[in-house]
């Protein structure tokens, strides 16, 4: 029985797919059309009561929230595939720290840019230039901290690729693509090098291929 991942077309589920590829875990995807409201049906809400993506089913076991799912599989299969957690308690502390930074500092302004620029007219979003301007400024300040960090450390948590870096891939892919603000990455020397490195990992290229 393979893990089922719901909603591969969207960004958050790609965190999970990438983790599963890195950990060499087999999976299937189940499409969910957000624009058609397939996330709000009673059957879906039984799986994910907030109506968000992703959710996974592993036999009888159900789990939601992409960062919880990637933690689960990274730990369960610690000795298989890429070690995404770090070897010592201190390394793991840094991985968790930067994963929280992604969730609380990086994701919210970037998500605003994604919603207002890519999903204008959907999910009740009306494009708001003030929100876009403020979100870009906020994200810029976060990226300045990243620039400093990545000038001293190859990856966010240290010299190893971890869940913290992985978590940034799907939405940053939107940033440099359809959101049209790739300059925010390119203009920062160390962030740019980090992005070039992580976005050319075979595992990420495989996820993009699967989700075409």
């Amino acid at each position, binding site marked *: 029985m393979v893990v089922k991942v719901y909603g591969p077309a969207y960004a958050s589920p790609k965190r999970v797919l990438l983790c599963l590829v890195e950990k060499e875990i087999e999976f299937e995807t189940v499409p969910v059309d957000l624009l058609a409201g397939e996330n709000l049906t009673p059957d879906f809400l039984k799986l994910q*009561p*907030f109506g*968000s993506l992703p959710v996974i089913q592993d036999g009888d*076991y159900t*789990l*939601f*929230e*992409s*960062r*919880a*799912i990637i*933690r*689960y599989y990274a*730990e*369960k299969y610690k000795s298989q595939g890429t070690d995404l957690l770090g070897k010592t*308690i*201190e390394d*793991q*502390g*840094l991985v*968790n*720290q930067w*994963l*929280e*930074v992604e*969730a*609380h*500092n990086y994701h*919210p302004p970037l998500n605003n840019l994604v919603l207002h620029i890519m999903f204008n007219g959907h999910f009740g979003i009306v494009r708001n230039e003030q929100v876009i301007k403020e979100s870009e400024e906020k994200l810029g300040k*976060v990226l300045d*901290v990243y620039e*400093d*960090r990545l000038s001293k450390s190859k990856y966010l948590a240290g010299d190893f690729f971890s869940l913290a870096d992985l978590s940034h891939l799907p939405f940053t892919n939107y940033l440099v693509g359809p959101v049209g603000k790739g300059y925010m990455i390119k203009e920062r020397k160390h962030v740019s090098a980090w992005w070039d490195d992580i976005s050319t990992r075979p595992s990420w290229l495989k996820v993009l291929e699967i989700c075409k």
Partner: protein
Amino acid sequence: MATPVKVYGPPLSTAVSRVLVCLLEKDVPFQLVPVSMAKMEHKKPDYIKMQPFGQVPAFQDDDITLFESRAICRYIAEKYPNKGTMSLFGTNPLVKASMDQWLEAESQSFIPPSSVLAFQIVFAPRMKLKQDEALIKQNEAKLVKVLDVYENRLGSSQYLAGDEFTLADLSHLPNTQFLVEKTNRAELFTSRKNVSRWWSEISTRPAWKKVVEMQNA
């Protein structure tokens, strides 16, 4: 004996109090180092060295400097697995995954609307800022939807992750304390039977009562 760990920040900050209650639950001795946000001490170079985003808390022990309250809580739970409340981090991988799931739900779904409400209702008047009624209404509506999900969950589960108190429940303490005790929106929680039961249980734990004392000192 190892030196006590250090936590930097004011106890009234929700993120700082999250770390304090975790340390108290785990019986880990600590020293609280005050940081005056009114005097912008969290934006000064010495502090920025520890926390480059200029946010509270920051944490130090002999081996590491860390920031982000939930990462600090995880570190404490991993470093001291056999101290204090041992169920805090989940007693097996499935409970731990459930804890992670509800901790993420707290971050992504509970914190944004509850923080806006706490700021608008409690802090804006204190800072002499005009309250944004539309924002209050919008975020109350969001919080209601989240609490409906919690009401359902807590009807079939003692705590969010399962039968035992974990980091997922703990993480809700700071914002809920504000909303229940310092605003007239307590009924959002108290009118929901299961949420109300859960809130009574988690908020009367000795560790949280101690943090509230520290906040009121």
